[in-house]
């Protein structure tokens, strides 16, 4: 039971971070379908830090270095989305999809190159971080506390305060609702959209590194992040683009994702004799059902997905 709680919380943290990232980007008016790819690149940044930093440094240094590594790479990567969608008014769906494919391909090529350079016989795309991972964990009895749970809560507070209580957040949201109106009162729409995209890069990058630190101590980059970026988008839609509701939605989805990891720990679930594949597909099935019921009365930002054109009325 404790294990289920632990996995639920850690997966919910991932979903919360990434969904908040999507939330910032969409409120500014840019649909970020590339979250999945940004997660992979963020995970790569953190994993590289863990690989090259010796495991003997103090946990605080390790945690900060890993967070920095993933944020820097993820933000750099999300500029690709910004350049294409804000500057060149490209199709946001297409560019997002391209970022997802590019993220996995680039990470795989890069990690394989590093591994092969270190050992010519090693052609895997795996990075190990058994030692470094310990910095993030604190054992409280049988419960494994992960610092990312704190990071996720901080992100939630940051999102809530900055979106609803600051001038910046309100302006950001105006650009997603009616950019022409925002522009007419002197808000720089392009700047605000850049801010939205870059903040979503920060949060998605954190989510990515958090995801590969949940449960395992090595990651095969060929696998990407298994649709988590899209699950996060489902969480965001279920949460109706509002940070607090997103947090609740993330907990629900985290629970179903956790079940597929630990279902064999429950006697009554094992006795049902359901194949593992069913548990694996559960989060996706649930999100489809949830989306079917919540998308009708969508409170999506009105101007999301439409490139801003000053000349349009």
């Amino acid at each position: 039971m404790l294990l289920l709680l632990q996995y639920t919380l850690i997966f919910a943290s991932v979903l919360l971070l990434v969904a908040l990232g999507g939330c910032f980007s969409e409120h500014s008016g840019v649909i970020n379908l590339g979250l999945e790819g940004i997660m992979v690149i963020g995970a790569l940044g953190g994993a590289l830090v863990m690989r090259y930093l010796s495991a003997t440094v103090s946990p605080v240094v390790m945690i900060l270095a890993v967070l920095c590594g993933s944020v820097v790479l993820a933000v750099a990567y999300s500029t690709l989305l910004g350049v294409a969608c804000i500057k060149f008014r490209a199709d946001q769906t297409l560019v997002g999809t391209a970022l997802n494919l590019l993220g996995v391909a680039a990470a795989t090529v890069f990690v394989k190159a590093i591994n092969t350079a270190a050992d010519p016989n090693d052609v895997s795309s795996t990075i190990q971080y058994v030692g470094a991972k310990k910095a993030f964990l604190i054992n409280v009895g049988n419960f494994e506390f992960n610092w990312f749970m704190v990071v996720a809560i901080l992100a939630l507070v940051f999102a809530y305060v900055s979106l609803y209580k600051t001038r910046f957040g309100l302006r950001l949201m105006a650009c997603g609702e009616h950019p022409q109106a925002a522009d007419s009162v002197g808000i720089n729409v392009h700047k605000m959209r850049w801010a939205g995209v870059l903040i979503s890069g920060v949060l998605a990058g954190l989510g990515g590194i958090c995801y590969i630190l949940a449960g395992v101590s090595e990651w095969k980059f060929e696998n990407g992040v298994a649709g988590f970026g899209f699950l996060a988008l489902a969480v965001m839609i279920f949460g109706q683009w509002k940070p607090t509701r997103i947090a609740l939605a993330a907990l629900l989805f985290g629970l179903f994702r956790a079940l597929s990891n630990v279902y064999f720990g429950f006697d009554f679930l094992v006795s049902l004799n359901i194949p593992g594949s069913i548990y694996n597909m559960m989060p996706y099935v649930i999100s489809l059902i949830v989306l079917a019921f919540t998308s009708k009365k969508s409170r999506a930002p009105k101007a999301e997905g439409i490139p801003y054109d000053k000349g349009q009325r």
Partner: protein
Amino acid sequence: MRDLLKKQGMQSLIASLLCIVLGLLLGYIVLLFINPGGASQAILAVAKNFLNTTRANLQVKNFANTLAKSAPLLMCALSILFAYKVGLFNIGAAGQYVAGACACLYSALAWGWSWLPCMLFAIAVGALYGAIVGLLKAYCNVNEVISGIMLNWIGLYTANMLLANVKESTSPYTVHLKDGAPQAILPSLGLGKLFENNQYITIAVPLAIVLAIVIMVILNKTRFGYELRATGNNKNAAKYAGMAEKRNIILTLMIGGALAALGASLLYQTDYMQWEVTASSVPSMGFNGIAAAFLGGLNPIGTIFASYFIQHITDAGAFVDKTMYSSQISDLISAIIIYLCGFVLFIKTTISSGIARSEERERRRKASAEAEKGGEA
């Protein structure tokens, strides 16, 4: 020259070629970063594919293998293209492809069906799978990209579960059709003889090309196609004009699903590939279809060539020097190409405005020349 550049088709062609050149160039830069020594050789290997071998019969064999895999890619690309014309981004093509693979392999191996029923079954299952996305979009307003991705994963796990019943006892792969269900292999009608008796060249290749032409005719020459494009351009206007926009959305995704699933049938029923029941990610064919569709300028005929090209560089990944680079370098290049396709609109408007500007200049020059002449007289 300028008249030629004004043509939409010409602009698309230029934009696509630019994407390819830039994609290869950026890929080359990445290779330089990884290992400067072998970068030129590796990028040449990717560009050459079957020409990397010198023996003529091996060249023909490799070329034929690439062709055999281009057919399913073309079907996936058509699926994405068809939906895109209606304003839908069918990223679920990857899942519909999985559904088709599962249907044709299962019906062949478990039920012993022959090739045509297997293929039709795959098409039906794919259409149904696409219909889920369509129904959710039309009646529940669910974003087709997100529901498509969810269905991709659901399809993957379902296929793994079902096909585990027909796998080889010692490996995670499904039984070879030539051992378990030879009746389900697509007929070749002697086409393989043209390619040094390649057993993977079947009716799949010509069938895929014919279907590309059929799709073009449907989209451009029929009332149904006109309605679909109208729905894509402006959903509300189409509804106002009395077109059943909900029905059109569902039908489109059903056709998209059928096309992608047929693609799977065209590959798995040649016995070229077996399904791996421990697969942890969706086959990349559906995603590469996005690259092919956009690189082909969203034109069915252009897509035929683009599909071949994407498959050409994807297969060529096997020829790069493995001591320095991994074969995924070709995935990287096709991903870069998809990204660059986002700039196609920008390239086209740049060409158009460039033409407009030079025309304007000429007109002004003529006007001023005439004004001078007027002055003399």
